[in-house]
């Protein structure tokens, strides 16, 4: 009730669908578990350099050893994947993808628009549209390494095992970089109120 009173006084706060907020929360938490347990698995045999490769420091890692890391990783994968699936269904059923995600007019706006705010909005839409296939790639490359015999036809698309491992690993720095850019652009476009609206 108090919230409602406040918002009538101030300029209107951006409103977000409950599902968009729930998606953001679950996505961040499950990705933190996936990344920290994933780096624990990484340390068992570093993607770069193998047994002689550089380890990640313990404070970044979840689980006390490889077995723990795998338990966390293969538990959180369900939460991460199901959350992404529900979100995908939601943006298609509500036709959210039509106006909230990037289209060709955003590319044009980015190149030619005189309106600075429109430019940021267009750029931001492109950024968070492009991350969707990256989030899906994390699942595909991971599941293929989890079941390479049953999913050999997808495994062969990646070429070698080292490519598969590298692609799966690279989704961490890409998502991390995205999180910074996404937050920065949201702040620039709509201030802290816009960022907050996606969570509370």
């Amino acid at each position, binding site marked *: 009730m108090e919230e409602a009173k406040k918002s009538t006084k101030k300029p209107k706060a951006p409103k977000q669908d409950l599902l968009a907020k729930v998606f953001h929360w679950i996505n961040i938490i499950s990705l933190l578990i996936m990344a920290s347990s994933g780096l624990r698995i990484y340390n068992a045999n570093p993607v770069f350099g193998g047994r002689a490769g550089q380890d990640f420091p313990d*404070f970044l*890692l*979840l689980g006390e050893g490889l*077995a*723990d890391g795998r338990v966390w990783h293969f*538990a959180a994968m369900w939460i991460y994947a199901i959350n992404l699936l529900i979100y995908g269904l939601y943006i298609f059923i509500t036709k959210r993808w039509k106006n909230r995600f990037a289209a060709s007019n955003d590319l044009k706006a980015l190149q030619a628009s005189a309106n600075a705010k429109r430019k940021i909005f267009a750029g931001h839409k492109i950024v968070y549209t492009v991350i969707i296939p990256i989030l899906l790639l994390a699942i595909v490359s991971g599941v293929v390494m989890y079941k*390479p015999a*049953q999913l050999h036809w997808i495994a062969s698309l990646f070429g070698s095992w080292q490519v598969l491992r590298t692609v799966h690993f690279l989704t961490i720095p890409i998502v991390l970089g995205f999180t910074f850019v996404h937050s920065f652009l949201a702040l620039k476009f709509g201030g802290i109120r816009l960022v907050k609206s996606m969570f509370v």
Partner: protein
Amino acid sequence: MGLILPKQTLSRRKLLQWSSLVGGSFLLNGCSSSWGVSQINQWTEPLNQSIQQLIVSQRSVPEFAANQIEPNSLLINSFNGAPDIDLKTYRLTISGEVNNPIQLSLGEIQALPMTSMIIRHVCVEGWAAIVQWGGIRLTDLIKLAQPKDDVRYVYFKSADGYYESWDLAASLHPQTLLAYQKNGEPLPQDNGAPIRLASPIKLGYKQSKWVTEVILTKQLMTEQGYWEDRGYEWFAGL
């Protein structure tokens, strides 16, 4: 000693807890204590296992070409080094819930039909290698021993004390071999000579080296495998 030791372990544990607080990762490390993991595992391992059993089939996994073999990628792992085995007195026994327990010398094993396959060997540590394995099909050996109807599991004991257990379906898979050949050469000692398990459908730690006994059972015992008893997944299917 008995009085001092527990105290030392406690203080070390405290120290670790404090260091993780300082590291600012107390939230994550708090979850990593074993209670969290075993609780989560109780929920997810049966789920993950049933999905794995659902997608696994008795059909052969497609193989690789000879020029795709990666001889340098296959790393050596063992929990206690390679045991010395006298090849003249070596016997492989198949026993347990069978009507016809058998014992085979190396000569007798090599007289059985050989199967060769080029598959990807995947280690739980994350590395993999394309390897050629040659040997006899485990399913042929199990048939010779005539298992009883209600056999469900197969245990493997090794000369170095390593032990493993498999589900029967995976043991009967046409590409589950008792191998004595690697990349066209006699199996080296470090890779499990004279006889080791090789299969494209299980993680490396399921593929026991230096196998001496195959035991068919109706039930899974408390001891499921060297690494399984240390927190690793039992099914470990690929």
